[in-house]
C-alpha cells in the first residue's frame, strides 16, 4: 500500500501544481507540533508513607506476596500453614508501628453512653438514631497510639519499589 500511495502522490505532484504547493508547505512544517501549553508533568517519583508501609509489611510479613498470589489450587491446610506466619509477622509489624488499641475500653456487647453530640468519626450509630444517648457496643473500634513509619533514604528510581528484586550472586 505504501508503494501504491507513493506512486499516486508522485504522479499527482507531477500533474497538479496546486497539490504540489500544498505538499511542499506541509513537508516544511516542524516535525513535532509544539503543544499550546505544557502538558502536566507526571508526578516526580515520591516515597509516600503508604508505599513505605506496604514495603515494610512485605519485608517483615510477606503481605504483598500473599495478596498477589492466587489461592486457587491450594488446600486450606496449605494456605493456613503460610498464613499463620504471615499473620504473626504482619501483626507484630503493625503493632510496633502503630500500637493499635481498641478505641473504646468497654467490652463488646455492653451498654455504652454516648456524648451529647457524637463525632461521626468516632461513633458509627445504627438503629434508632436520634432517640436516646445509650446503646449496645457492637464493635469497640480501633485507634492507633503511635505513628512510627521507617524513614526513606533511597533513590528516586526506587521510590515506588515495594520489594527490590532479589538476586543471589553465584
Amino acid at each position, binding site marked *: 500500500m505504501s508503494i501504491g500511495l507513493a506512486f499516486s502522490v508522485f504522479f499527482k505532484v507531477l500533474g497538479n501544481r496546486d497539490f504540489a504547493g500544498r505538499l511542499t508547505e506541509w513537508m516544511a512544517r516542524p516535525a513535532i507540533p509544539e503543544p499550546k501549553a505544557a502538558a502536566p508533568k507526571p508526578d516526580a517519583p515520591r516515597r509516600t508513607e503508604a508505599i*513505605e508501609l506496604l*514495603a*515494610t509489611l512485605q*519485608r517483615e510479613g*510477606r503481605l504483598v*506476596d*500473599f495478596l*498477589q*498470589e492466587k*489461592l486457587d489450587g*491450594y488446600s486450606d491446610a*496449605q*494456605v493456613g*500453614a*503460610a*498464613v*499463620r*506466619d*504471615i499473620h*504473626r509477622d504482619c501483626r507484630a509489624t503493625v503493632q510496633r508501628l502503630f500500637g493499635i488499641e481498641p478505641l473504646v475500653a468497654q467490652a463488646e456487647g455492653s451498654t455504652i453512653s454516648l456524648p451529647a453530640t457524637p463525632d461521626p468519626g468516632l461513633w458509627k450509630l445504627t438503629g434508632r438514631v436520634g432517640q436516646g444517648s445509650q446503646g449496645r457496643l457492637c464493635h469497640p473500634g480501633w485507634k492507633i497510639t503511635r505513628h*512510627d*513509619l*521507617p*524513614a*526513606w*533514604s*533511597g*533513590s528516586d528510581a*526506587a521510590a515506588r519499589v515495594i520489594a527490590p528484586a*532479589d538476586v*543471589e550472586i553465584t
Partner: protein
Amino acid sequence: MSTATYSIGIDLGTTNSALAFVALDDPSARVQLLDIPQHVTATSTEARPLLPSFTYLPPEDTGSTALVGLFARTQSADVPTRTIAAAKSWLCHTRVDRHQPILPWNAPADVHKRSPVEVSALYLRHLVAAWNQQFPDTPFAHQHVTLTVPASFDASARDLTREAAASAGFPGDFVLLEEPQAALYAWLAARGDTWRKDLRVGDLILVCDVGGGTTDLTLIAVREQDGDLELARLAVGNHILVGGDNMDLALAFTAQHLFKDKGHDLDPWQSVSLWHACRAAKESLLAADGPASHPVTILGRGSRVIGGAISVDLTRDQVQATLGDGFFPACALSDKPAKRPASGFKQLGLPYESDTAITRHLARFLSDHGDDGQPAARPPRLLFNGGVFKAAALKQRVRDSFRTWFGDDGVPAVLAGEEDLDFAVARGAAFYGQAKRQGGVRIRGGTARAYYIGIETAGLAVPGAPRPLHALCVVPHGMEEGTATSVPGEEIGLVVGEPVHFRFFSSATRTTDRPGDLLTRWADGELEETDPLEMSLAAAENAEGGYVPVTIETRITELGTLELWCASTVSAEKWKLEFSVREQE
C-alpha cells in the same frame, strides 16, 4: 560531671545493645528506653529500642560505610562474609590481637576488616549519635554514663571496653558495671522501697544471666550495715561462652533435620527464617501452659509465598530434649563441665564452650563458693536475666536442678516482679547511675577476681622443662573502686632498654589471698591466664647494672578498670604496665 542532666545506662550486648536513661534531678523519674534509629533495609531507617550488635561492611565501590543494627543482622544471613557478629565475645579472646582487623573472621581478602575494639566502638558511637540527635541540648559527653560488661570479663577485656568507649565519645568519668549487678538494680528499681521487705539479712541471691552469647553467674549477699540492709557481690563465675544464640541454633538444627526427613534441603537463606520461626516456636512451646506442638513454616523465597511454603511440626518433647537436655540437663552438684579435648591444632574462631550444659557450669560455680564448711553455696533467692528465660520451662529446669542438689527446701525463691528480660541490664545501669549520684542503694563488691603476676623462679634450668612458675598476688579479691595498694615483698628488678613482659593471671575462686602472697602451687583451673603485661623502659634511665629495682603498685580506677604501676625504689619515678592484647603463643 556537675552538668549532667541524665543518668544513661548502656548495655553493649553480644547480640543486642540498648540504651536506657533517667533524669537525675527528679527522684520520681522513671527509667526510659531510647529509640535508636537504624537501617532496617539499605534504604529505610526506623527507630527501635534494641540495636542488634551486628555490622555490615558493604563493598567499597558502593561508597557506603559500615552499617550497624537490624539491617546488618539481616545481612548476616544473606551476606555472611561481610557481616560481623559477636564482636564482644572476641574482646575477651586472649589468643588473638584485638586491635588487629580480624573481623569478619575468615572473610575474603576484598573485605575491609575491622578490629574487635573498633567494632565495639562502632556500636557505642551509634548509640552516642542517637542520643545527641534526640537530646541536642544535653549532649552525651556531659551526661552521667554507665556501661555494662559481663561480670566474667577480666581486667584486660574491661580495659579494651574502656578504650572502645573512650574513642566513641564517652565522657571521661563514665563507669563500668557488671551485667548481673545491673539486672539486680533493675529489679530494685522496679520494686522501689519495698525491696527491703523482700530480702532478709543473710540472704544470698544468685543472678543467673544467660545472654545471647554468654552465661554470667553472680552471687550477691544481703548484709546489715548500720541497721540498714546492704548488698555485697561475693563471687562471679568464669567466662562461659554459651548463650541463647547457641540454643536457637541447636533448635534450628533439629528442625532442619525434620525438614530433611520430609525431603526438603534448606538453603542458607531459608535457615534465617528457620531461626526466626524456631525462636517463636520455642517461646510458645516452653511457655507455662504451652501447646504440645507448634508448626514451623518456611515461606518460599520467590514471590509464591504459599506455594513455596514448607512446614513441619515441632513438638514440646523435641524442644525439651534439644534445649532442656542439651543446655539444662540434670546433673549432680559435684559434676564439672567437660573439658575440651586437647588438640594439636591452633584454635580458630571463638573458643565456644565444649560443654554447653549451663546446669553443670552452675554446679561448679556453687561448689567453688561454698562457705562455712558447706560443700557449696546455697542461695535462697534467684534472679533470672536474659531473653532465654522467656521460656518458662527453662527456668523450671534451673529450679529442678536445685531440688536435685539441695532437696525441696533448697529450691531458691525467684525474685518476683515484672520481667523485662531484654532491657533489664540497660535499665538497671541507668538506675545505678542515679542511685550513685543520689545516695540510693548500692551493691558493694570491688573486683570480682584476684590478680597475680607470674614470676619465674630462679635456680637451675632443666633442659626442655619450663622454669617453675610462681604467682604473686597483686590485687586481692574485692578490692574497691577508687583504691590503691602497694604490693609488699621483695623488690623486682626491671631490665632497662628492652620490653619487659609479665605473665598475668586471675582467679575468681581464691578469695583470701592478700597482696604480696606468693603462690607456689595452685589447684588445676584455679588460676586463669589472661593477657600479659608489658612495659618498655628507655635505656637512658639511671639504672645501676642495667636494671631498676621496683615494687608493684595497683589501683582500681573509679571507672572500674585495673592499673598496675612499677614504682622505682631508688627514685620517685613510676611506670605503668599495659595489657598486651597481641596474638599470644
